[in-house]
């Protein structure tokens, strides 16, 4: 696969006057933004009809840099705001950027119900295993025993798996990668954007400032390596399972890809019948 050069991304998709981003050195959020914009470019999506919606958190700052309509909502509420945007104007492409806390804790219920409703939006969740913006508190995704500023003795709560939740509730497209998988990320975001219905892409991303520092994981290079080592591709994982083996590694890859009628299609059908 050939890649275009960044100047096209910067010229066409970014608000140059807002750069550089506020993200810390080596923060993975910028990479995810880059992957998403490349997916949009490849699909030739009209930015005049695209709305980026986010909640509150470092990850939720992404829409502020993108040259399109942007809705920076409240902590946890991005998916609910996005639902309103999409249902009120189905022509719009609606893309949500949300943190793991935004999506899985305070916004967890909206996440579940938007999947249940199968609203035609794409949710990109940047999972850095921590509350980055507020300085490194425990998140619902924080692994057991990890240190955060509010789990100084180690995390005793079991983490949730956002992608597995999405799968179980019935999202028609679910994929998980890490920032160290640019090619796979771009290809999954493209598929997600093309899917009618709720599509979910989770990207494990380094937060060197909080998660990395508190857990002595080194800089973003070390963290990125760690992500590669601590994850396993679904295909490999399934083979392992078949062989009766198991692993603690986090499963990455394309986890769901099915067809399922979305809310708007169903709604329009019965509206049509009423007329």
């Amino acid at each position: 696969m050939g890649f275009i050069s960044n100047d096209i991304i910067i010229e066409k998709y970014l608000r140059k006057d807002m750069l550089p981003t506020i993200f810390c050195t080596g923060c993975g959020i910028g990479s995810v933004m880059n992957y998403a914009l490349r997916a949009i470019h490849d699909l030739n999506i009209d930015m005049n009809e695209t709305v980026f919606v986010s909640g509150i958190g470092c990850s939720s700052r992404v829409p502020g840099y993108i040259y399109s309509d942007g809705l920076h909502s409240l902590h946890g509420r991005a998916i609910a705001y996005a639902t309103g945007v999409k249902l009120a104007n189905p022509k719009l492409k609606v893309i949500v950027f949300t943190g793991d806390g935004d999506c899985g804790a305070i916004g967890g219920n909206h996440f579940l119900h938007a999947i249940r409703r199968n609203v035609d939006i794409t949710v990109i969740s940047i999972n850095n295993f921590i509350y980055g913006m507020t300085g490194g508190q425990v998140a619902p995704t924080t692994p057991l025993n990890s240190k955060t500023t509010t789990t100084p003795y180690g995390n005793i709560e079991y983490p949730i798996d956002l992608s597995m939740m999405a799968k179980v509730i019935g999202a028609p497209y679910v994929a998980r990668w890490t920032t160290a998988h640019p090619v796979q990320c771009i290809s999954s975001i493209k598929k997600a954007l093309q899917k009618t219905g709720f599509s979910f892409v989770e990207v494990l991303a380094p937060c060197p400032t909080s998660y990395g520092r508190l857990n002595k994981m080194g800089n973003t290079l070390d963290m990125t390596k760690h992500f590669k080592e601590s994850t396993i591709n679904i295909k490999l994982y399934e083979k392992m399972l078949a062989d009766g083996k198991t692993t603690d590694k986090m499963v990455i890859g394309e986890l769901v890809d099915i067809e399922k009628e979305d809310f708007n299609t169903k709604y329009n059908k019965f509206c049509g019948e009423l007329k």
Partner: protein
Amino acid sequence: MTNDVIRLLGRKDLFIQGDDAAVYGALIADCRFFAGYPITPATEVAEGMALWMPKLGGVYVQMEDEIASIAAVIGASCTGVKSMTATSGPGFSLMQECIGYACMAEIPCVIVNVQRGGPSTGQPTEAAQGDVMQAMWGTHGDHQIIALAPKSVQETLDLTIEAFNLSEDYRVPVILLLDAEIGHMREKVVLPEVVNVKVDERVPATIGPDKYRPYRTGFTRTSKVPEFAPFGSGYRTYVTGLTHDKRGFPVTTSADVHEELVRRLIEKVQDDMDVIWYHEDLFLDDAEIIVISYGTTSRPAVSAVKMARKSGIKVGHIRLITIWPFHYEKMKELLKNAHTIIVPEMNLGQMVHPIRETVGKDIKVISAPKIGGAIHTPYEILKCIEEE
């Protein structure tokens, strides 16, 4: 569109409850998006919208809670579609953070609150006026919303239309404060003549996308309200609840930017008080005692005042229709000749506070509270008048 609604309803005379009147008002005002969550005594609003929205090309969606409902309403309104939600106390409490967002980002929306007894789950089926202060001050930070309180089913319909107009004109959340009494009471309602219905739209962007700054002011009929470019119109606007400059982008540590913005959010409404503030008055010319009421309570209040007049007491009545913002100047003027003011409310005394603040120590202000669900009887209010 208004025509379509009146045609669809089939007739102009209806016998409906207050909750339904809010639905019909919304339809006539061109509301085409409703998101809500069932709660007594407001559920009938959601049920009505679920029935009508699909027939009119609008959207009805039942969300997972009231936070999601108001969030979806704000999202929908960003695309330029008039949007509404309806709830009661517990749900209204949940909505507060988003109401503040709508104030900050200046996204029009209408919230119907059919008040019931609180706090907490309280008295689900009983009427109350306990959310009056919350309507104004429920969300954090300095801000200004508009709240209207109808006294009848007909007025519920009329004021729902007006709520949308004010919300569009001032780009501010408008709260329609009903109560369980009006919400569930059936009365005759006459739909307005099409020609008489005024339906306002927010002012669109008046310049091209290259020069457009989403929060510049001076180009709308009320000069402190910015123009609006809906999502998808090619203007590529950024909307945030953070303190922002005229471009709409966060500037969170400048005292000047913050003060300019927050003051404008309040002034854009308050500068137009004379246009926004509706009231009714009765027998004020020579009134020494004035009863001030709003919403359902105005019904027994007017009866009591009329009875007292018959026995020669110089008593008058003011009914607040716009209850927020509170028009201190006008009220001071209207109250200047009274020696006593009586404020019956279905709470333990809320609106009585700005009234006390208006008249200072010169005039006696008596709170006539009643809670528990039953509305005041005219005799209860009459007794207060006679005691003065």
